[in-house]
């Protein structure tokens, strides 16, 4: 019945051997746990940042500044926005102009947006999206997509401006502003409701920017890998029946216009922005 190997295993599996076996597994697991915890992703980036700080320090003040830098989880506590953004644990250099040429993730934040939107008031995720509490790149950036909290990328980032800024504040010619105008141009309210106006033939768009990818109907035949909200909206605008037979009119939008409209859709969220963080409000905000 029993082969020699199983018989030998059986002889080997005496209680003391099993105790030793379990104990060794326990130790291995503990060791692995400690090693994983001791080597977080952000540590390497902060070490690099500190190294560069020290190398560039040329006077007493900057030497002291570099010496005081501590490698630790860094975060922006934003009780008003009900969030904690730990993005700065890796993106340590965003406010330091000396890191303009440094590689990501420690580079300076491009442009001058941070001088008006100071990180200590607004944090990161209110504009960029993603998961602010996460301390690993994959989780923070919402990778792999599709994910519940993906970051907004490239031109689509403009959608976040509309979370606080009213229509009258949109920069003329920006994607957001073009999208806003296209919304009127195509007469979207003929079928869709937005805030208090419009009709109910199509879905209400008041909170469309807060919807996750799984809230959209992808049809039964779509086999593609891109299941992001942005992709759904853009495909749908270019061809309303891209995923399933839709009753929406086909406006034969150009890529450019479809994307501008996506940007505008992304600005329509239900995120609660406290009044004191709001600029003056535009006419269409309730």
């Amino acid at each position, binding site marked *: 019945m029993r082969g020699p190997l199983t018989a030998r295993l059986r002889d080997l599996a*005496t*209680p*003391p051997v*099993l*105790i030793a*076996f*379990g*104990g*060794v*597994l*326990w130790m*291995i*697991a*503990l060791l*692995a*746990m400690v090693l994983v*915890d001791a080597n977080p992703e952000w540590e390497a980036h902060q070490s690099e940042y500190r190294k560069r700080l020290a190398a560039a320090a040329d006077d007493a003040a900057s030497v002291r500044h570099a010496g005081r830098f501590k490698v630790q*989880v860094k975060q922006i506590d934003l009780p008003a926005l*009900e969030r904690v953004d*730990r993005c700065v644990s890796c993106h340590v250099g965003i406010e330091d102009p000396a890191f303009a040429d440094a590689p990501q993730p420690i580079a300076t934040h491009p442009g001058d947006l941070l001088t008006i939107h100071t990180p200590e008031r607004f944090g990161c995720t209110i504009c960029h999206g993603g*998961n602010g*509490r*996460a*301390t*690993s790149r994959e*989780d923070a950036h919402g990778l792999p997509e599709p994910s*519940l909290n993906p970051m907004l990328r490239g031109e689509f980032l403009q959608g976040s401006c509309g979370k606080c800024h009213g229509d009258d504040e949109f920069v003329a010619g920006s994607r957001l502003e073009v999208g806003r105008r296209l919304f009127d141009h195509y007469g979207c309210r003929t079928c869709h409701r937005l805030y208090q106006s419009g009709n109910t033939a199509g879905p209400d768009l008041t909170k469309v920017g807060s919807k*996750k990818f*799984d*809230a959209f109907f992808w049809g039964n035949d779509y086999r593609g890998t891109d299941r992001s909200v942005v992709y759904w909206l853009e495909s749908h605008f270019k061809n309303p029946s891209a995923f399933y037979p839709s009753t929406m009119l086909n406006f034969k939008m150009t890529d450019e216009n479809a994307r501008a409209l996506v940007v505008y859709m992304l600005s329509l969220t239900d995120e609660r922005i406290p009044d004191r963080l709001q600029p003056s409000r535009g006419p269409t905000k309730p």
Partner: protein
Amino acid sequence: MSAHSLMESLRCSAIYRSIVRRGPADNDIDRSLAITSNVFLHLHPVKIRRHALRFTYTFGLGGITTLLFLILCVTGVLLMFYYVPSPERAYRSMQDLRYVVPYGTFLRNLHHWAAHAMIVTAALHMARVFYTGAFKGTRQFNWVVGVILFVLTLGFSFTGYLLPWDQLAFWAITVGTNMAAAVPLLGGMIRYALLGGNIVGANALLRFYVLHCAVLPALVFVFLAVHFWRVRKDGGISGPPLPAEVPEEGPPERLFATTPGRSYALVALPREAPAAVEESRKSPEDTVLTYPHLLVREAAAAMVVIGGLLLVALFLNAHLEEAANALKTPDPAKAPWYFLGLQEVVSWSTPFIGGVLVPGLMVLALLAIPYVRPNSVGVGVWFHPARRRAVIAFTIGLVLNVLLIVVGMFFRGHGWSLVWPWSN
């Protein structure tokens, strides 16, 4: 001074002797005292039947279930240091455990997988007891206690997976309390009492938290105490009737070196059997001393389970869905695997039939098992031929349950429609 003689002098010190009021366990009297004079070990009898030691009789399932419960207590208490039972902060606690609490992910994984494992081992323990007829005779009532413990375990699981306040939690609490509302006459009241109101919100979370961390543990400790007590009082671990003749078996295997003076080590004890052990083996009960024979096996099972569980916790992260969103029901909204059979039944029937009648009858049927045929036929033997019909009936029930769970796990897709597992 060598480590060995250091230990020796420690063992001779007055303080050590005041703690352990017995000699080195190199004779049967001290080995008996090791069990009876220790508050934890005295759950065990001093001697047990050799039959009870056989791994293929019990598979150590009851003990492993107990061990998992203790692991859950320890990890659960540690998790409580960070968990805040409020809708605003519960989900954040989960994220903080994952991202900024040292070993937080690991600990949560450990709690999660130990809970899943406990359901499996408790169910298997129940199956083992059924198939070996161990619920018969004096042990009728202890089966009832066991069924109660199993229901409490499921209660632990249900209240536990609500606490992260993710989508699974929110919709499980919604469905679960609506099932409770299907109880005739009292349903509405039960739902109101469970939720602490009419909607799934802060009160409901707090109530389930208190149930999970205070009420259920207290109940389980009480019923566990009764369960263990009754194992002893009902005649120890079940086994086949004693043979008329004393079996001729060799001495218990030697586990460790017979080095003099090393007997302090628990696992070093089963040295060459001294005369007293030989004598006890020749008694009609065919017993061996619990210390060390049973204890060393328990220690082995415990260490293997702990080691395995830690490895699982290292590689498999506990599920955490999107934060609770009252406006959006996930699609498909699936319960954890152990409730999928029930979910399957509910999807075919009214909330009363699927949510109250079927589970109620299942528990009643389990409770009734020892009283259906109160005889002692086939005790202590796996699948005793005299109990063929009972074995077949129980197996059908078990297989049906597993089948429903498999259907729920792999054959249900969007909108709870039937799909092939490979079409997703």
